[in-house]
């Protein structure tokens, strides 16, 4: 037994040096990428929900079956419980007809559906914008310098935590040769020293798309694609953890790169191609020319007499890859007791005080009838119907922009790029945590005295609408363009 009274400052220094020796081991050991850590956290959260929240999830499914699911104003008691999802995987290795069609949807970077279809990612993947103000926005693995013109960054993740990726768009000035920038990116990646086990290899170079694979020891392996456009460059990469059984081929990555190239040519800086006006999912085409609205017989909830279902956007025309992975939508059954307050900050009391015939159609999709959105149509039939309708449009906009507190959670609002479009953000702090988003659009209709309100939801952890904010507003434009024709 040591005599502890013999301790002195020399001993203190000795122990301190010894502990510092251990620090050397830590400094040379590879640390897992933060994206894997977060993915592991999300997987933990998902597992917890699936076990502890199984009963609540079942309740959500039942609620959505009658037309008003968890997002409804009267169901805010469990706002972030995920609905069950199919785990089946699309395994096509090249752009599918759906993917090819999705090119009509505007945007310079590949969409989630294009990532999913080309790489065969399972449902549950999420594509999120990175905040340009965040420290990480300009931080890139491997690059010796970040090219000028970094315009947009997005991150893609899977719930299982075994796949993490992202894409960045560099819009270059007219005096900068995109090929030179792309070559420098490739050189940086090939020469990357991320650790003793990191090794990157150029695999292909064709039509403005260079693919590189890499291995990083215990940190996993993955791919890069450097894509050159007319006046822009897209950088794509993803990492697969060593625990994953999934394998991604050069052909798959090249296919994703080809889509990125096509998008730069159509929608990137210096683009010369034009959007196909016939594309049904093109957000720009939809608002300019737009697909023709069709009629569909659908159940309408509300006090009798409700407006005809022909005044609503057909459920089939809600279909989009960003709503439940493009599953076929349908209208939910009518519920005579359903709330008319479909916007987060509205209440039934407010709605009860407004005149006119009014009804709501809830649109759902998937085998578990997942609620993807709602539309409310109100038709004023007084002599001053048009003035009342204009006032209703103004009322909705003002109410939304005020924000509110709902169920103890603060709801904040921002206006979209087009008149009548809004995004409500709810930071959930009671009973659960997370962020919910509600896109709200309001417009006059072709029917005299008619007003349409369209809403759909998303959450910070990827439930509901699966697109970025820009895509959300584009989606609103598309649906409002259909609503206006009614």
């Amino acid at each position, binding site marked *: 037994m*040591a*005599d*502890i*009274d*013999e*301790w002195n400052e*020399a*001993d*203190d220094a*000795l*122990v*301190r040096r*010894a*502990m510092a*020796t*251990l*620090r050397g*081991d*830590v*400094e*040379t*050991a*590879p*640390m*897992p990428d*933060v994206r*894997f*850590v*977060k993915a*592991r*956290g*999300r*997987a*933990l*959260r998902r597992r*917890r929900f699936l076990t502890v929240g199984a009963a609540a999830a079942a309740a959500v499914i039942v609620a959505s079956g009658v037309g008003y699911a968890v997002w409804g104003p009267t169901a805010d008691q469990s706002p972030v419980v995920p609905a069950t999802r199919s785990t089946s995987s699309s395994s096509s290795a090249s752009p599918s007809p759906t993917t090819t069609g999705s090119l009509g949807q505007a945007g310079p970077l590949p969409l989630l559906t294009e990532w999913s279809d080309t790489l065969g990612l399972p449902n549950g993947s999420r594509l*999120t*914008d*990175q*905040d340009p*103000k*965040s*420290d*990480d926005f300009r931080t890139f693995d491997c690059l010796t310098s970040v090219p000028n013109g970094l315009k947009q960054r997005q991150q893609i993740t899977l719930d299982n935590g075994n796949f993490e990726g992202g894409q960045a768009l560099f819009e270059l000035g007219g005096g900068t040769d995109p090929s030179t920038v792309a070559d420098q990116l490739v050189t940086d990646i090939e020469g990357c020293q991320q650790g003793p086990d990191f090794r990157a290899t150029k695999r292909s170079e064709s039509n403005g798309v260079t693919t590189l694979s890499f291995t990083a*020891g*215990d940190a996993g392996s993955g791919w890069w694609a450097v894509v050159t456009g007319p006046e822009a460059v897209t950088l794509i990469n993803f990492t697969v953890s*060593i625990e994953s059984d999934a394998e991604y081929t050069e052909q798959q990555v090249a296919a994703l790169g080809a889509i990125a190239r096509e998008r730069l040519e159509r929608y990137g800086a210096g683009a010369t191609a034009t959007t196909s006006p016939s594309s049904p999912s093109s957000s720009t085409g939809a608002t300019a020319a737009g697909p023709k609205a069709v009629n569909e017989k659908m159940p309408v909830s509300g006090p009798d007499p409700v407006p005809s279902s022909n005044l609503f956007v057909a459920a089939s025309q809600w279909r989009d890859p960003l709503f439940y992975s493009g599953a076929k939508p349908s209208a939910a059954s009518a519920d005579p007791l359903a709330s008319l307050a479909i916007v987060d900050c509205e209440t039934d009391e407010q709605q009860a005080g407004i005149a006119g015939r009014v009804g709501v159609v809830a649109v759902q999709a998937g085998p578990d009838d997942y609620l993807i959105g709602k539309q409310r149509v109100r038709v004023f039939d007084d002599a001053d119907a048009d003035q009342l309708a204009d006032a209703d449009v103004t009322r909705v906009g003002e109410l939304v922009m005020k924000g509110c507190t709902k169920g103890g959670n603060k709801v904040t609002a921002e206006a979209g790029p087009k008149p009548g479009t809004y995004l409500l*953000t709810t*930071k959930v*702090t009671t009973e659960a*945590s*997370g*962020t919910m988003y509600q896109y709200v659009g309001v417009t006059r209709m072709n029917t005299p005295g008619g007003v349409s309100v369209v809403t759909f939801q998303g959450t*910070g952890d990827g439930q509901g609408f699966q697109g970025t904010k820009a895509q959300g507003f584009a989606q609103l434009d598309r649906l409002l363009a259909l609503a206006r024709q009614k």
Partner: protein
Amino acid sequence: MSAQSAEAEFDAFYRDTSRRVVHLVYGFTGDLTVAQDSAQEAYAKAWQQWSTVRAADDPLSWVRTVARRIAISNWRKRTTQERAYTRHGTHDTTGPPTEDRVAIVAAMRELPDPVREAVALHYIGDLSIEQIAHETNTPAGTVKARLHRGRALLAQALTHEETDHG
């Protein structure tokens, strides 16, 4: 706080603190692989409930405590884990052990658990006696005694080691 800024905040937190946590758990367990895995799991749990953890007085203290608890559990599973690593063809991420490291780890392992914990928190975590007392829910006097004892035992063991190797 938006989802994106929460992500950025967590990313910065992880980047700034994760090696310190690995170092701490490494000192506590003497096993770098267990330390890495325990730290990663602790940060994953922190992200899982980031809105709560970030609001805590000291998020790093939260992660440190969780990582130490996980490490104790993982240490018990180590033999099973090693079998799994072998089966999947992966390998320990630590390099070949130096004599110094072997001696330090061996000396640390001789310490009783509470003493080793106090030494690791003080010398690696840079925590004061009061902070250790708070984090381990132990009276400050007890922490002081454990530190004193651990320091002396370690110094004695390491001095012997240096003497034995000339």
